[in-house]
């Protein structure tokens, strides 16, 4: 099959809507346009039934006991905000301490920073060189004022999968609410809120081949019953936790996307893992000083993050940008103009954060695409190294750390 350019390999940022998902959504824009809150006519009943079905589909994907535990939001960011702020406000009397990690997605970190300004205390746990949080560190961070543990399921840059079940067990043992940002994990790897002791879980549709603009917060109703203060006041939709008209077409798409992911997860995961491993082997066997970021095993099957020493990430992306869509941890590619705090947290040094490239495979990735992107990446990095003063110095045997750099 002929390759179509540019090749999308940035599935940690978003995914294409699966055509089956779109098909399920379409009637709910036009003929089935009712408000699920309209209790007294067929338009409302139809919409409510559709939303309830979607709720069940999402609940099933995360093994929730009761579909009522799924609260629809506008996406992952809102779910994370609702979870952390909602617990902080609801349990303020009980305590004001939160345990989280240094590599949470931006929303999680920014919510915690805001809470700190409001008088809460937050412990940001470091991660090891492989990106893993040490459960013992979580245990040690807990105080009698701790009301929430918030640890992401799988990281959006390096794909590292945290020991969620162990943290869930610890949280239960200590009687502390446990939230996980599972936006990257749900639909890709098995997620089981019951078996893993998860009390709150944030997820989003557009990472699982569903539409943008809808997500969910799972809120446990039993053992323990978790209560959260709402962030949006209004008509009391979503059991009072999230007012606002439920966007039925989006929710239907989310449900369908969840159903498909549940059905194909094992097979799709195995296929993407094989392709990812192929891409990884091709790159690492062709280039010296290319380093895998994250844990070699405990990571999402579709994730690959590599730092190419001596070349800067944005320049690699520029060499590929008409051909392949990738992401980098380089400062030049971030809104904040800071290099990736996730890669930096691995302790590899800021220069390797600037040099990191993230590949995200997905449902529509083909073997030809993987071959092509692998070959081109090697070519681009090789060319850039030929123009890199750092590569030249390293090849001359100069220790780059011995140089007194004059930063401007």
């Amino acid at each position, binding site marked *: 099959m002929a390759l179509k350019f540019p090749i999308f390999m940035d599935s940690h940022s978003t995914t294409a809507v699966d055509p089956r998902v779109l098909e399920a959504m379409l009637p709910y824009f036009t003929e089935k346009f009712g408000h699920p809150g309209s209790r007294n006519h067929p338009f409302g009943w139809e919409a409510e039934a559709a939303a309830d079905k979607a709720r069940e589909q999402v609940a099933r994907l995360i093994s929730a006991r009761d579909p009522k535990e799924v609260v629809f939001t506008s996406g992952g960011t809102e779910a994370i905000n609702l979870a952390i702020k909602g617990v902080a406000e609801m349990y303020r009397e009980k305590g004001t301490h939160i345990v989280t990690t240094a590599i949470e997605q931006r929303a999680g970190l920014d919510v915690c920073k805001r809470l700190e300004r409001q008088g809460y205390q937050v412990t940001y746990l470091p991660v090891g060189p492989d990106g893993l949080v040490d459960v013992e560190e979580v245990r040690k961070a807990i105080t009698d004022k701790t009301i929430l543990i918030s640890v992401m399921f799988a990281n959006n840059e390096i794909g590292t999968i945290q020991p969620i079940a162990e943290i869930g067990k610890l949280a239960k043992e200590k009687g502390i609410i446990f939230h996980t940002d599972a936006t990257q994990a749900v639909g890709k790897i098995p997620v089981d809120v019951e078996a893993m002791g998860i009390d709150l879980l944030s997820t989003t549709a557009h990472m699982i081949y569903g539409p943008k603009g809808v997500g969910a917060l799972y809120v446990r109703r039993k053992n323990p019953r978790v209560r959260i203060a709402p962030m949006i006041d209004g008509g009391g939709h979503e059991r009072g936790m999230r007012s606002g008209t439920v966007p039925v077409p989006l929710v239907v798409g989310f449900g369908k996307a969840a159903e498909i992911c549940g059905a194909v997860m094992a097979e799709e995961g195995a296929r993407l893992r094989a392709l990812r491993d192929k891409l990884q082997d091709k790159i690492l066997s062709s280039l010296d000083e290319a380093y895998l970021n994250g844990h070699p095993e405990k990571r999402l099957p579709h994730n690959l993050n590599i730092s190419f020493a001596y070349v*800067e990430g944005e320049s690699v992306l520029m060499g590929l940008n008409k051909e392949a869509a990738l992401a980098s941890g380089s400062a030049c590619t971030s809104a904040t*103009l800071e290099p990736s705090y996730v890669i930096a947290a691995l302790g590899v040094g800021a220069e390797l954060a*600037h040099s990191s490239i993230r590949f995200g495979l997905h449902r529509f990735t083909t073997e030809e695409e993987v071959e092509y992107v692998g070959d081109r990446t090697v070519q681009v990095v090789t060319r850039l190294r030929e*123009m890199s003063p750092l590569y030249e110095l390293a090849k001359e045997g100069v220790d*780059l750390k011995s140089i007194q*750099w*004059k930063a401007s």
Partner: protein
Amino acid sequence: MAYSDKVIDHYNNPRNVGSFPKEAPGVGTGLVGAPECGDVMKLQIKVNVDTGVIEDARFKTFGCGSAIASSSLATEWLKGKSVDEAAKIKNTDIVNELKLPPVKIHCSVLAEDAIKAALADYRGKWGKKEAAAGAAAS
């Protein structure tokens, strides 16, 4: 972010990539930036010590496309200029030529720093000979 055509051209066809031996006659080397900041430029000039004219220039850059383009452009501009004329190249000239957006202005600043560092290195190493040659000629 979309790049200007000139940045893309310099990125795809960088001018004067390479290195001179640091101690070769008339060679001045500037190495600026820092790896942890995400950009390092090495810029070299080869000056005719008798005339004070830059006869050749080379660069190697670790950095984004705009940093590569800024240093590539600098080497083009340096060739044929006297050492004194070269000192007058300003980062704003590079910004205008490459149409760099505000977030990339630091790339042009780094290129100006690299030019200055190369000129200073040249003057430190070979400036006296240039002065002597100038005196002999007059």
